[in-house]
């Protein structure tokens, strides 16, 4: 139940998009290409973690614990003598999967519910909007940790919680697209030709309706990684000794007076992964003409 208003403004994207060109910086797709490059880097890093990381993530070496960054250990070691650099690299696997899965399930659930509600309208739509309002009334993170408190801490609880909470954005996006498309000419034509509801929804409407959701999902990955690492930091998500960035930051906080590197580097990793996805989201949004 938030306010909407007619903007009557020109798209700011045109002005912004023209800027890099004017500076001779190569033009509009820069954000997109840089974003793709960064995300590709992290994905490759996750896949080839074993080859890149010099040590096993959980290999303890108690003789060299709490060492500052050095040539042998570029990111230093933690209180168990584990190499932070390797742990950050292996953590990429966990956090990336967390980000992608944490977007995938809400996407599927939200899109399904949103398109049904938008397409059929009536009581189905009203009920859905009420459920949406109620879900939105709870602060995102609070509802998630409340659900996790019931289910017990762990990664699967996290996935269930985020699906139950995160579907809302996708449902809203798809629903508003469907509402607009429902009365568009090509859909009316399909109806006139006697196509069934399911065919119209899947083959004709959904491909168009999905565009804003896909753009949003890129920036949603950022939100999910932040949520996931926050919840793991609190001890409610991924559990130690698994090398997940949020867990590492939590463990490192105990030693922050003497060994700042244990908390610093996992955090930088989060920032850079998120930056890559944010650029990708921006670039994709500009390319596909979707306003924020």
């Amino acid at each position: 139940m938030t306010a909407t208003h007619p903007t009557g403004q020109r798209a700011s994207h045109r002005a912004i998009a023209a800027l890099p060109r004017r500076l001779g910086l190569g033009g509009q797709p820069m954000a997109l290409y840089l974003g793709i490059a960064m995300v590709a880097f992290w994905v490759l890093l996750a896949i080839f973690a074993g080859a890149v990381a010099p040590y096993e993530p959980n290999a303890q070496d108690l003789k060299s614990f709490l060492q500052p960054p050095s040539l042998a250990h570029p990111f230093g070691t933690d209180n168990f003598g584990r190499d932070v650099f390797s742990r950050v690299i292996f953590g990429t696997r966990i956090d990336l999967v967390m980000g992608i899965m944490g977007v995938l399930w809400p996407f599927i659930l939200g899109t399904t519910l949103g398109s049904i509600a938008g397409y059929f309208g009536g009581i189905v739509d009203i009920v859905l909007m009420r459920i949406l309002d109620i879900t939105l009334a709870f602060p995102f993170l609070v509802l998630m940790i409340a659900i996790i408190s019931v289910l017990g801490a762990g990664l699967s609880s996290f996935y269930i919680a985020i699906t139950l909470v995160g579907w809302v954005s996708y449902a809203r996006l798809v629903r508003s697209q469907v509402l607009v498309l429902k009365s568009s000419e090509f859909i009316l034509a399909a109806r006139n030709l006697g196509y069934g509801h399911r065919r119209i929804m899947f083959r004709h409407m959904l491909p168009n309706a999905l565009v804003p959701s896909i753009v949003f999902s890129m920036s949603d990955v950022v939100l999910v990684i932040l949520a996931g690492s926050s919840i793991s930091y609190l001890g409610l998500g991924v559990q130690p000794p698994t090398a997940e960035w949020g867990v590492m930051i939590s463990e490192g906080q105990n030693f922050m007076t003497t060994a700042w590197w244990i908390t610093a580097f996992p955090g930088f990793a989060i920032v850079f992964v998120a930056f890559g996805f944010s650029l990708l989201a921006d670039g994709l949004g500009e390319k596909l003409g979707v306003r924020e």
Partner: protein
Amino acid sequence: MHRFRFVLYRPLQLLPVLFGISVITFVLIHAIPGDPVRTILGPKATVEAITRVRAQFGLDKPVVVQYGLFLKNLVRGDLGRSVVYKVGVVELVAERFVATAFLLGYGVVLALALTVPLAVTAALFRGRILDHLIRVFSTAGLGFPAFWLGIMLMILFSIRLGLFPVSGYGEGFLGHLHTLFLPAFSIGLALSAVLTRNLRASLLAELDSDYVSAARAKGLSPRWIFVRHVFRNSLIPTINLLGVNLGWLIGGTVVIETVFSVPGLGSLIVKSIFARDYMVVQAITLTFACATVLVNFAVDVVTVALDPRIKL
């Protein structure tokens, strides 16, 4: 003032939502596996306590009746007792509510204090180095985990430089301002990344508007036009965005309070989850949800006040 008529109708529309909130909170607690009495009272309950609780919450009766009793207790201001702190939950929540509210308000103020200068600078220096730097900052800033930011700031300013205390709430208003500066700043910095992008885009769009040309044709100075026309128009979508993000913010206090050991509702709910103090978890969830609903309502009122075109 018929535009504000919705203020009268809105509470009625909110009732179903509040109802739904209470249902979900109720369901959550009852979804916990195990004996609900143990849930409510903890493992060391006396026989009399067990009997009393069974009666009060009607645990032998059908679920619907239990919900009714839950509502009745709610209205009476009784949400049970904390297993850990041994006081009424309502009392506990009320005590710690202020710290969280202070932290949130402080965070929003700092966010705005950062956002407005950054966005205005970026818009006025459009296309130049400063603008690009600010844009990079705000895009990168979207990915800064507030809790990590808090720890980094703590390491630098509390431990290395000793400028701020590492934890707590402080005494007195100025004490609060000092002690809560780092946690509020973490929240504010993360929030300003989001808001700066939006405000900058808004400002640029408004600067290109036709009414700006018309204002220039009246001989008005750029500064007058910026302050009295462009800025006001740009603020509206940004305030809206702030409202949308408040849900996130309120959730964010959970993590930040844990990082900085601020004695507020956020750190309490986390501790209560680990301590299986479920009555407290339920009450705080309920409180946060109601707060979100009220704040969204307030944002709508502010938006209507700022934009005469909107009818809600």
